[in-house]
């Protein structure tokens, strides 16, 4: 690929691409965290630089279990990851947690409080936890997180958890970069089924009803039953895997073993059907297409002349002179002519 940017300044500041990739492979935390920062940066030279490092270590990626965890706010995702992650660390696993936090205020700033709920896990030397602000664009989340995931794999983490907050579009994106998608829900409220979009339930390979403790236990079990009958209607996402529903109490450390054995079973099935790598290849294809769309989008909207043209057509559309579809056709044609 042609080098559009002068990378020598960046190499001076961060080290050479060769050095950095070596350090990544040796598991140096500082380098890993800085490379993730660079891939999250809105500066194109930063992005290019981090891609160069990532390309160097790409052959060493792909060896982890990629787990996506999502659920509505307040469901106890962080507490679950704390318990689940600590359980895995005790089993000798190396865990990386990538948490995407949407809490961005008007100013562009955000509060990332996740780790306060992962006190024990965050203290472990076998765990790397990186909360990232969602920033402005959804597409951004997708690219940052994919690249961060690959960087973590190259650094030797064998289990990667991608945590997304909320229930929305980002889940679909995330499900395109992980192997198993876990949806967390909690009892309390009653209209859970309506609260979570059907589309997200369809993405889930495993649904966990959390907070099955204390007063909420029986309610949690009821909800699990409801979901169990609901998911029977879903088409299996991969061969022979039917979405499973279990209850757990992350607070009381109950149900974690079962969740892990289901996860293992899931990957075993993947292995037997030998379609894990096919699945991941498909994800890379999708990623490519997504990137093309986003790149085009970005280029069109950052082109001043095209923007002027859009303004002109907008007026025409508003007075009913031109149809939006016809205007879009003309604008894109103009852009391509350039």
């Amino acid at each position, binding site marked *: 690929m042609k080098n559009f940017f002068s990378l020598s300044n960046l190499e001076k*500041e961060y080290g050479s691409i060769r050095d950095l990739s070596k350090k990544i492979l040796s598991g*140096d*935390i*500082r*380098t890993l*965290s*800085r490379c*993730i*920062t*660079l891939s*999250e*940066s*809105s*500066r194109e030279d*930063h992005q290019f630089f981090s891609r160069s490092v990532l390309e160097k270590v790409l052959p060493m990626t792909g060896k982890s279990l990629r787990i996506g965890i999502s659920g509505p706010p307040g469901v106890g995702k962080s*507490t679950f990851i704390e318990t689940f992650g600590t359980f895995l660390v005790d089993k000798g696993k190396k865990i990386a947690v990538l948490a995407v936090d949407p*809490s961005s*205020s*008007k*100013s*562009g*700033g*955000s*509060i*990332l*409080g996740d*780790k*306060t*709920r992962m*006190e*024990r896990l*965050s*203290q472990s030397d076998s765990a*790397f*936890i*990186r*909360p990232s*602000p969602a920033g402005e664009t959804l597409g951004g989340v997708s690219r940052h997180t994919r690249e961060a995931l690959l960087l973590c794999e190259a650094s030797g983490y064998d289990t990667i958890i991608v945590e997304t907050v909320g229930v929305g579009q980002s889940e679909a994106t995330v499900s395109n970069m992980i192997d198993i998608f876990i949806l967390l829900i909690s009892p309390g409220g009653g209209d859970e089924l309506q609260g979570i979009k059907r589309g997200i339930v369809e993405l889930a390979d495993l649904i966990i009803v959390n907070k099955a403790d204390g007063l909420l236990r029986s309610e949690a079990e009821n909800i699990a039953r409801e979901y169990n009958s609901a998911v029977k209607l879903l088409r299996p996402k991969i061969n022979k895997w039917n979405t499973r529903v279990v209850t757990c109490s992350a607070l009381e450390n109950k149900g974690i073993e079962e969740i892990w054995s289901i996860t293992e079973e899931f990957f075993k099935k993947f292995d037997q059907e030998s379609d894990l790598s096919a699945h991941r290849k498909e994800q890379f294809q999708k990623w490519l297409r997504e990137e093309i769309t986003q790149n085009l989008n970005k280029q069109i909207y950052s082109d001043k002349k095209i923007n002027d043209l859009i303004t002109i057509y907008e007026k025409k559309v508003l007075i009913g002179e031109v149809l939006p579809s016809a205007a879009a056709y003309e604008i894109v044609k103009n852009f391509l002519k350039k």
Partner: protein
Amino acid sequence: MFNDNNDIFILLRNSSIERKIMVGISKKLFEEWKELAQRELKGKDLENHYWITPEEIKVKPLYTKEDLKDLANQLENLPGLEPFMRGPRATMYTNKPWTIRQYAGFSTAEDSNEFYKKCLENGQTGLSVAFDLATHRGYDSDHPRVSGDVGKAGVAIDSVEDMKILFNQIPLDKMSVSMTMNGAVLPVLAGYIVAAEEQGVPQKLLSGTIQNDILKEFMVRNTYIYPPKESMRIVSDIISFTSKNMPLYNSISISGYHMQEAGSTLTQELAYTLADGIEYVRAALEAGLEIDEFAPRLSFFFCTGMNFFMEVAKLRAARFIWANLMKQFNPKDPRSLSLRTHCQTSGVSLTSQDPHNNIIRTAYEALAAVLGGTQSLHTNAFDEALALPSKLSSRIARNTQLILSEETGVKEVIDPLAGSYYVESLTNQVIEKTLSLIEEVEEMGGMTVAVSKGFTKIKIEESAAKRQARVDKNEEVIVGVNKYVNKNLNEEIDLLVVDNKKVISEQIQKLNKIKKERDNNAVNTSIEKLRNGAKNKGNLLELSIEAIRSRATVGEISKALEDVFSRHKAVSQSITGVYGSAFSEDTLFNEAQNKVKNFAKKEGRQPRILVAKLGQDGHDRGAKIIATAFADIGFDVDIGPLFATPEETSKQAIENDVHVVGISSQAAGHKTLVPELIKSLTENGGEKIIVVVGGIVPPGDIEDLKKAGVSAIFGPGTPITNSANQVIDILLKKNLLS
């Protein structure tokens, strides 16, 4: 003229006619006054002249008889009688003045004991022990997590031997002792009981108070150890034990103090405290006690801040509401309805700028507490925004009360502000607001539910962020901070310096000695019994007393219970937008926002700061306000877990790749812990991450911290817009250089 006067005399002599006519006159007069006032305001609307307090109470510029029209219920009260609004005792200070109870603790039991004895000689009438944070959290002084905290914010107590030194030559059968302890409440209370026992004083003669208020710890102060449910069991075990064996002892001090310190409004403080109280009553009833067995021994603890009349009204309202709330439990003993309270002047109202001003603030606050009818009072020392109190500042604080008590005559009349149009009307408004807040909590299912949902904590944090914004915008004046700032001030103040390394080594020596001399088999047996009692239904105070007698340490007892109960982890919630929405055209705020935008453009991301607390200091109000305000300015803010070690904080800073670590320090641990943090950052490749410190930093520490590599230090009262601007300036400068 003459005739007119004569008429008035006649009217005054005939009171029944007077009443009729005065009302008529007063309406006419009032209109006249209004017109006159309107004229003096030169066209400005009188309505705009109302003062809206943070409690959302509208205070008018003038109160009249009209305002008392509907308050008959409230006005016809007398002290000592139900509902005790005018005081829990019939004679109040006219018979026995309030107890002067100064809260203090100096590093070691030896130093504290010496200090207590001197205070008692000089007119103090009750003791109040401040423990260090290691003790609060149930760690012995040799535990690796507490190296920065031992002996810092109070006295280190590891065993009954320390307790005995603490009360050496203090007759525990005569002296009432208050102990601020909530987390490690079992071994500490047991230690006090056994120390007394070995002095020859039986349990039934012990008088004093243990704070034992765990619910507010989960809300604001964070010196808990076990999860809420298990903690509530400990509370009711203590209530049950003391109600049977220690009839003169206050088994709990239900505290609003720390809520106001954390930034709550006065009505929030009152409502959440009373709701906590009701929750403890329910827990004790559930444990099988009769209401009159324990309710008379419940006591309260409020903060007295600078909103003078509102503070007086708050205490009157507190007694009125408590009596009415307690009726639901059908007590037979009227004392079960009466609210008795300790008060402490506000620490958060103290400033590090021009610290002598704090003497004056404390004096006004003390007056408010006394006019409100407190049973005992602590007055803060003027240097507490800078360090722990010195001998001089402690003396001035104590004398503030002695002068108030002996020279001003306030003791001579009971509830002297009763009947004031303003104070009565304000009392009524505080009652109304507070009741609606209590209702909100009760509807959620009571305080344990509200606390575990984090509801009240968030409410208080919202109020705190709003207040900070008012101060930073100069809407709320703090003399010497945002108005009348004395720029050339250069006074030397002698502050207390704690050599924490020396304290640790002394404590470890004592621990080793006790562990060598005691019968370890007996210790193991008593600890095992305690563990079993925790699993089953044994009274945990009774079992702790046995363990303490066998010379088990505070840490060992706490650990045994932790094995069964687990150690509680805080769930941290945060808010955004509250601070920022208060600013629209404030220049400093906009300036900071613009600088952040500028930085983000250059750097490719928002500036990222990790706001962290180190050691066992759980006061997270400052950290929370900084977090929300910085996020509103445009920072990405990571919040670190409470009770972190320097190494853990450094790991988080590096993993999250932050530009800045901001350490919030309220309890003096920074001197040891911050240099360790910087060392750990440097060793792990984070040497470019800058470190700033905010909170209570004695001037003497500043030089040391700067030498260790701290880039900036912000004292209490620094407007956040200032600190944010400074931080971003440092970052921009570094950014240009690299």
